[in-house]
């Protein structure tokens, strides 16, 4: 009987953690908006948030800060969710859209759309996409190529967890090389700098219409799908044989998951550039807090992704203000050592090649 109570207690603890994270997230939104070069009291910030006027503060809040904070909220959740889902469906703790090269493949797609299809331009250090749909579709198509490469390497060539990640990282270099080649060949300073600026991974560049697009796709497809599959991800962790005997097709789940993760990553990458490692850090951090059951892990991981991205972006904006450090640089500085740590600790994280 006391064991039952213990199970209940641990579920309450997980639920409580989740509630706390939701509260933290909702406090972080106005807090991140309040922090920055242009100082204002939290009360004033809240006032203009709910009642926008023509003051400079309102312009700062609505045109500069709120957009990027909301982008961090959504994109953080999408990237972290994708990481968690891919890790479970491939039973690979090192898997994530970033370590699997989906971000780099998407970035090549964006470059192709920018350079050859005149999908955008740069003016006054701001990148404009004439056609955000075209750019994201290209990012998505290119990341689908990488999805195919990954699935072939894993299930036709039979690579183990670590070999798969290492070969995916190697392939990411190919995408980067092609990206450099395009820049070298095109030799148009403006377009080249567009692409270079764009790869930095900066939340500030997303426009309201692009944010709507990301939000609709994430909230309508990506996030609900990952949450819906929670119990199946638990099942997948036990092995393909168990999944099949429960009447679930592991191949289908793997394909759907990687394609939807590619969709989310491509959307995020096409509007804010490459944001590395959030999709790897957030799931692991979440797993340490609530354990491996995806019913709690998936939402916790998504919230952690949002929180990490919001905090990194806020630090990037304030640490050497008024200069803004792109958030992609901030997350990579923290994330890269973590990846090395996980590779060293590989065995302890329970993956057996």
């Amino acid at each position, binding site marked *: 009987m006391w064991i039952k109570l213990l*199970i209940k207690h641990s579920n309450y603890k997980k639920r409580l953690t989740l509630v706390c994270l939701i509260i933290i997230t909702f406090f972080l939104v106005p807090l991140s908006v309040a922090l920055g070069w242009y100082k204002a009291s939290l009360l004033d910030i809240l006032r203009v948030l709910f009642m926008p006027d023509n003051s400079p503060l309102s312009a700062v809040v609505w045109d500069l800060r709120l957009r990027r904070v909301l982008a961090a909220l959504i994109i953080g959740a999408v990237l972290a969710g994708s990481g968690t889902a891919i890790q479970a469906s491939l039973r690979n703790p090192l898997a994530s859209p970033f370590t699997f090269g989906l971000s780099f493949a998407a970035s090549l797609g964006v470059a192709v759309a920018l350079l050859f299809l005149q999908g955008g331009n740069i003016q006054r250090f701001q990148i404009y996409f004439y056609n955000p749909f075209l750019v994201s579709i290209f990012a998505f198509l290119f990341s689908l190529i990488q999805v195919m490469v990954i699935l072939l390497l894993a299930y036709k060539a039979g690579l183990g967890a670590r070999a798969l990640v290492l070969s995916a990282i190697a392939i990411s270099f190919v995408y980067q090389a092609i990206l450099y080649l395009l820049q070298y060949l095109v030799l148009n300073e403006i377009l080249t700098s567009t692409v270079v600026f764009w790869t930095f991974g900066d939340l500030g560049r997303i426009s309201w219409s692009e944010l709507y697009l990301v939000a609709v796709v994430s909230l309508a497809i990506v996030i609900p799908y990952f949450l819906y599959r929670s119990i199946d991800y638990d*099942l997948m962790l036990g092995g393909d044989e168990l999944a099949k005997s429960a009447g679930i097709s592991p191949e289908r789940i793997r394909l759907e998951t990687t394609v939807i993760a590619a969709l989310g990553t491509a959307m995020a990458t096409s509007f804010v550039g490459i944001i590395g490692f959030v999709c790897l850090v957030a799931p692991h951090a979440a797993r340490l807090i609530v354990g491996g059951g995806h019913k709690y892990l998936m939402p916790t991981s998504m919230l952690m992704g949002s929180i990490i991205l919001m905090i990194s972006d806020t630090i990037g904006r304030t640490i050497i203000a008024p200069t803004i450090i792109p958030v992609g640089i901030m997350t990579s500085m923290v994330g890269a050592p973590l990846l090395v740590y996980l590779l060293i600790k590989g065995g302890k994280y329970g993956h057996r090649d």
Partner: protein
Amino acid sequence: MGIEIKVRNVKLYYKSIKALDGISLDIGGGEILSVIGPNGAGKSTLLKVINGILRPKIGAVYFDGRLLHEIPQKEVAMKTGVVPQRISSTGMLTVFDFVLTGRRPYINFTPTKIDEEKAYEALKTVNAAHLANRTLEELSGGELQRVVIARALAVEPEVMLLDEPTSNLDLKYQQETLNLIKALCSKGLTIIMAIHDLTQAYRISDKILMLNDGKVFAAGKPEEVLTPQNILAVYGVPTIILKEHKIIIPTERI
């Protein structure tokens, strides 16, 4: 309780290699059928065919009197508990969450109170309730085996398919696992297991199916199938059999 399973002349190929070549068997509720034979004889493949994971090229499997491949996968899943030879234990999944995945055929979106209750009952049946909050990685071989069986029981199966449930276990856990299987059988479940230990097969089974090279070499009651001649022919090992103790011993000295 218990489902009748009939296999008729099943043939299955992996590419051009014959894995199963004309297998037939019959088993009903409250019976234990042990499938024995050397490595690569087709034991695991046969279990997968009976589970509907692999569909044979020729022949048929009747599940409760109906053709297996005409029954929806979900319905088969609700009646069959599977204990694979090996499960992967990654991702810090807790024992309770793992056992809960056995309820997947009944779950639409998220496990209900009933599912949690059944998972808990299943853990209690195998005496592993105290492990509920541990992660799979932290378990010993014997504990893991019990938990995997608990997961199969959480399905509330009428058929249990076990693939070498006692290998990798120490003597005590082997005995415990076999007692558990026997107890499930006396509740009326249909039990089919692949097993390597001939003595164990001798003691626990109602029927034995001896496979060699994907063919049925012998089938029937344990004492009919497990003869020194059959064992020598299939394994190439001379043995003596102590009938009153149901023990099979290889005679070659090492």
